């Protein structure tokens, strides 16, 4: 899919050179509309939020949200986001990330992620896009029904406010604590 997007963009660029189309954003809008799935996105989504006692990212439909979010600019994403991130990760690992065994993928992505969040100056600037992609995965998961109500706790109508509840065995956060989510 990603390669298909790139091919489309190149075709579009050729069309521009030929004077046929003059608006690159239109080309990308069309490229974006064709995105229905991405193997790369599925893989990294599950590496970020794997299945545990509760389902992981792809099982709850996170990639679908991420693709829609990318097309509409959430978290500052552009339609190039997936392509860019996949490309820089492939460059970083020196090959095709997707063909590596899963433990190796986890190890390398964790390494990249740690460097990105440590603002490692040696990293290619394009890897900053990883923050955006990870953000969309995290938002998609914890805003899903499973993420909100099973992984975390959710109550739309609490009905009362108890100011000091001792945390016992269940130390899960409230996904419906909108203040805690908004200002975290």
């Amino acid at each position, binding site marked *: 899919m990603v390669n298909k997007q790139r091919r489309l963009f190149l075709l579009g660029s050729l069309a521009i050179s030929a004077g046929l189309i003059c608006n690159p954003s239109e080309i990308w809008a069309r490229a974006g509309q064709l995105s229905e799935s991405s193997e790369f996105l599925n893989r990294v989504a599950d590496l970020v939020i794997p299945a*545990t006692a509760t389902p992981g990212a792809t099982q709850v439909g996170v990639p679908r949200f991420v693709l829609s979010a990318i097309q509409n600019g959430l978290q500052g994403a552009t339609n190039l986001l997936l392509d860019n991130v996949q490309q820089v990760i492939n460059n970083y690992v020196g090959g095709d990330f997707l063909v590596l065994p899963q433990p190796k993928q986890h190890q390398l992505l964790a390494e990249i992620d740690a460097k990105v969040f440590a603002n490692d100056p040696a990293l290619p600037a394009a890897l900053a896009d990883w923050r955006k992609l990870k953000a969309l995965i995290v938002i998609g998961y914890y805003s899903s029904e499973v993420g909100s109500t099973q992984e975390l706790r959710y109550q739309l109508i609490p*009905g009362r406010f108890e100011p000091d509840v001792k*945390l016992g065995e269940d130390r899960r956060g409230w996904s419906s604590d909108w203040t805690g989510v908004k*200002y*975290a």
Partner: protein
Amino acid sequence: MTTNHYDAIVVGSGITGGWAAKELTEQGLKVLLLERGKNVEHRKGYKNEMKHPWELPFMGQGNKAYWDKHYAVQQHSGHLTEWNEDFWVDDLDHPYQSVQSPAFRWLRGYQLGGKSLMWGRQSYRWSEADFNANAQDGVGTDWPIRYGDLAPWYDYVEEFVGISGAAEGLAQLPDGKFQPPMALNSVEQHIRATLQSKFKDRVLTVGRVANLTQAKPEQGRGPCMNRAICPRGCSFGAYFSTQSSTLPAAVATGNLTLRTDSVVERVEYDQKTHRASGVHVIDRSTKEKHFFSAKVIFLCAGAFNSVGLMLRSKSAAFPNGIANSSGVLGKYIMDHATTLGVVSEIPGFEDSYYYGNRPTGVVIPRFVNLGEPQAYLRGFSYQGGAFRAGWSRGLREAGIGVKYKQQLQEAGPWKFVLTTFAECLPMAHNQITLDEQLKDIDGLPQLKIDFRFSENEYKLLAAAKAEAAKMVEAAGGKVIFGRDQPNPGGSAIHEMGGARMGKDPKTSVLNQYNQAHDVPNLFVTDGAAMASSACQNPSLTYMALTARAARKAAELVKSGAL
């Protein structure tokens, strides 16, 4: 053209328009309430109120591309969400011009109920010191009223609205007729105790908020369900809005005519009677024009829109806008200077959590410039609160996989944040004019807003940042960051002034009853009337002023004086 006559016309149906309609109809006047926006019915109109994030197309995040186009300004409001985006104006349809950089953020809601549907509900009295401020330091014109004039009207509106809060006996933030307060959580209690022991001049108290802790069955309003999703609209009627409170009261009198989709083009002035004779209205659904006449006219269109309407209302007698013989109409606009004073983490409370969402934070009332003068004028207060960081902290943290997921599953660290609200001095250079060339979707001239914060506001924010850090550190907290640069003007959504009250008709637009000096049957009771800004949220004061002015106007109509 159709013509209709009423005892009173109220322009705008937000917080003050609702109050004007209620008071005037209850006094027996036949009232036409005009709202430029669409009808939003209580309960039925809150279409996303009960939706979960996963039921929305963008999981509660909103469609950024759409927002960038239609809510280029409005999206900066902390109250705009995917759930309630329909309650905010479309910036494409309702543009305005901003002279300064950064641009003024004019945040608006054009519908029945106006911003009363999405307001922050913080409800504070102003103090004697606030009404004295202009006279005391000579900045701005002296208020024609004092706290004592408004106190009984604060009592009156508070009892109807339903304000929950704690009495603290502070002169600078007078107590009101409160419903029982909401509780402080464990970290907020700790900080309150820290202030009591280490900062004798300071108090942390729970936010005084227009959310019921006790039902008001006579108004059909239930107590707060602790959802804290108020700006979606509340079917329980637990917070005060036009829809939940004032409109039903006005309708119950049988004296109200409501007209939505009706924007007022201008107020007509009758040179023979020296009165405002009525209003010219554009029906936004049919594009037809109508004229409605009345004995009294209340402008409650929202501070800047009321000023814009007055500037548009030109006549031979008032070539620069109705009731503008002073020339100050449009001038001395204000908005609180706000910024994040401190963001901190408070360790030591890891086993304490809370259940339910309290729909208010905490407030630390003003403690500066109440005695010994400081290096700046006036003061600041803080609003904020303590909470445990939610899952979204994962956006800023390294980690992937099982361990990361486990970390985000737990309630996050306790955070304590304070937003600074600094008083904005009334300055003549901060003003609204009309741009006669550029029009909005209704063909009305756009407002040109010329606003910048002054040196005093910067000094206040700097002092507030330093004091906030001291308080957090005294409570054993760790400061993560604090700001002393103001958010762009308008961000507080406390825009005020432009038709200020005053004693002298040569330097003010309105008298002590919000009545235009020049046009005795024209009243302006929204934020436009304010002669200073204090550092408290102003809505409660607007309500008290409106109720007081409406009672006065009704007396004048009944006595035949108007």
